[in-house]
């Protein structure tokens, strides 16, 4: 598997660290309530299809990336910096 890092270019997946769903970027406000926090910390979709997930270019630029990947075909349709993906 290869990821096209926006900073470093296409690199082997061994250079990256995997974190999980990009949901982690949507941190609720402290007073958002139990349900919102439970959802944020614990609940994850397990889609057969397109998913947005976080990868860290640990052996490269230290950039956190949002990778849009199809879990069925493993096709990667988009890579962006996490710092830019939120806005």
């Amino acid at each position, binding site marked *: 598997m290869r990821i096209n890092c926006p900073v470093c270019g296409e690199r082997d997946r061994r250079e990256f660290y995997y974190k999980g769903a990009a949901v982690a970027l949507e941190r609720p406000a402290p007073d958002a309530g139990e349900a919102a926090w439970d959802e944020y910390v614990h609940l994850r979709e397990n889609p057969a299809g397109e998913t947005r997930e976080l990868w860290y270019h640990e052996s490269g630029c230290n950039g*956190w990336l949002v990778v849009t990947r199809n879990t069925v075909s493993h096709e990667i349709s988009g890579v962006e910096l*996490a710092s830019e993906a939120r806005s």
Partner: protein
Amino acid sequence: MRVEGKGLIDRDQEVAFQFDGARYRGFKGDTLASALLANDVRLMGRSFKYHRPRGVLTAGSEEPNALVTVGSGAAQEPNVRATVQEIYPGLSATSQNRWPSLGVDLMGVNDLVSPFLGAGFYYKTFMWPKSFWEKLYEPVIRRAAGLGALSAENNGDRYERAFAFCDLLVIGAGPAGLMAALEAGRAGADVILADEDSQMGGRLLGEVEEIDGKPGHVWAGDIVAELEAMDNVRLMTRTTVTGAYDQGTFGALERVGHHRKRRGDALPLECFWRIVAKQSVLAAGSLERPVAFRNNDRPGIMTAGAVRAYLNRWGVSAGRRVTVFCNNDDGHRTVRDMLAAGVHVAALIDSRHDAETVPGVRMFKGAMVSDSGGRTGLEHVTIRSVGGEDRIQTDCLAMSGGWNPTVHLTCHMNGRPTWRESIQSFVPSPDAVPGMHVAGACNGAFSTTGCLREGVEAAKRALDAIGVKAADVALPAAEDGAYRIAPLWAVPGKGRAWLDFQNDVTVKDVKQAAVENFRSVEHMKRYTTQGMATDQGKNSNVAALAVLADVTGRAIPETGTTTFRPPYSPVSIAAMGAGAQGKGFAPQRFTTSHAASVEMGAPMIEAGLWYRPSYFPRAGESTWRESCDREVGMVRESVGVCDVSTLGKIDIQGADAAKFLDFVYCNMFSTLRVGRTRYGLMLREDGHVMDDGTTARLGENHFLMTTTTAAAGEVMRHLEFLHQGLRPELDVAFVSVTEQWVQFAVAGPKSRALLDGLLDAPLKDEDWPFMACGPVALGGIAARLFRISFSGEHAYELAVPSRYGDSLFRELVKRAEEMGGGAYGMEALNVLRVEKGFITHAEIHGRTTAFDIGMGRMVSAKKDCIGKTMSERPGLCDLGREQLVGLKPVGEVKQVTAGAHLFRAEDAPKRENDQGYVTSVAYSPTLGRMMGMGFLKNGAERHGEKIKMVDHLRGIECICEVTGPVVFDPEGGRVRG
């Protein structure tokens, strides 16, 4: 039998080798299989389950029968296919799966009891009694089953891993692959052409068909020569592309050294490649399938294409009276070639009534071979036709049930092949692997012209996809015959007819599976073990599912195939894990004090990837405890020196650095003064403790964070995530400086005196209270000093750039020794911190909260931080939770052990009564007793209570008094003094 004037072997170079201890001669260019056939050796192995005598079936890597062991001792390699193993002077191979010898195999008794060993035998037989499984069934099955054996010695061979990149990877160097590589090579693309064989040319090497008026192998040699001359083309022989993975990544195994005597030189035995290709052409060819009939597994019965290849490539006739049995025109070529070479062909049996007549041979049309006979090799076959049964004397039967395109790689990314009626086989589905173009026999094009044309076309599509202009390549002239076939999978009749030769699966087994309702092809496979041996059923799967389709009354496409998974052919673990044996398993990190510590005789222990001194033995000390106790005493009474450089050090700068740290740590950092250090506790977002450490404020916008040794990488990732992912608007940046700065703890009542003698200016009391930090100088070098303590003593940590680490450590130790102290290692460090109740990852192991470790009030109410909201959940600060306590042995037994569990003194020590557990223990020379730290339900409220510690594993029971975690100097007077 060698045939004069035939073959591509070098008859001027004789090669001597051994098989089962007997000496034989072959020629350079021979495989073990061709050389043995040339010496009239037909029996090469025994089958897996019934121990039936077996000979070679094929001439390629798909071989199910002729598996041998090459070499002996540490270099012993089991399950080597004789069809792939090239002979070299001194090669020594032995047969497998027989006892005492290949000719007389006592396990052959299995064959006689075969009616009881059919499909599902294991599942039905070894059910009960349950206790028999471990003691009786499994050991017996393990001894009887299996193929070759390992030597159990350490593998001394060298293996390599390598990466390669290209525009176009061409897999297979037959006519299609050669044309694809030629087209792309001439167009200027960066090409890799890989082929599993020792010589490129594929099927052309085993056939007599001509291309452009030249013998096929000559034409192939010319193309290879042209490709070799191109700088942009890399040729990889003996390289099997074993798997197709995401984004154009391929795995490939190059057999670098199997064809020569092992010399212990620089070349590895094997190299596992990861090839990244923008586009690929799959020209993997096709594999011939046998026909199932009674006793079709006798040595001397081979595929028709293999018989032809042995003749044309290796100059070997597999028999003296050859018979051919086929359901397609391709088998007729074997008759033609054998006759042309002067070999006697006893008969041609074609199952088709309308087959074309072949001149010069006795031909049976609309007939089938229904049985074979012979002792350890074929002696005669029985032919059944409308006219009745005939018996023919023959020592070689060449059979062809048709050809299966080698679709494997196209299925590695979840693709399923498509049934093509005209060739009675599966072909790759379009675009099954992104960027892969399939060409030639692999795509169902069985004529030479078809292969050549498809090769060029596939390359052109690949070049187009990467924007390279195609070159002009003329299509050579070659045969363009049609391929006609009528389905014939299994000859009807009684007895056992083999499908999977390697796993001993018969037509009867597949039918039995269907009768017992294992009708799905995946169920049938697992019930019968069809296709589950090392050859993965390369020449048997299609026939097996055709039989299943027939019994279940379904069409073949409806029945479907099983899943094709990598690797295409076996890959040794040693190749995939090359370089990872022993010290190669993980990187080693050494501190700058490593050499000095080793010189002092310190045993080094692993701490993550780091190596740290355990203790520093002195003359007269015979146990680690003696050294450790002395080192603890040094720190408590004079001064000790310890390298603490392995802790993670992260330099944090920016206008919002303080604000960011408030978000990271549960306690406040924006209030920290410049020139001061603060202990910080980091939570995970779920409210549990992640890591701890001290952070120093070196300037208004400049902090230096330390992490625990183990969590340094994790914390760095965490900080980057919190910044980039959650707070990108903050002006802050981080860099790890763990390796740029070394840091030494100087701890003990005389630490101040030691430093005053070393630093360029003595320390002033008012500038250096507990937790102060700042720049100092020694010998004109800018250094950093922190007045922090992990021992509870008046202590400092002194940091200098790494290049001074070795000399500073030696200087510190020398000065400490002059003052009655010295270096201390990890053992003493641990004792000192347990005496003070300081936590490590033994306590913050991922399931404990700030509340549990008695730091609940550190979670600031004035701000948000990572983990704050979730840490406030009732369950995470419930009084019934296990809380950190100290444990003091007060009964007869004085031994406290880590991992032991805690119970009320009056309770039985069982799970239901569990009250907590011990996390850290040490013998305190300061207190003269053992001490422990652990977690106890509502422990903070239970100080003074007597509880029972039980170590079920070691059989230790010890009554302990519950104390606070800090057992030495709880008021902290020494650290401030």
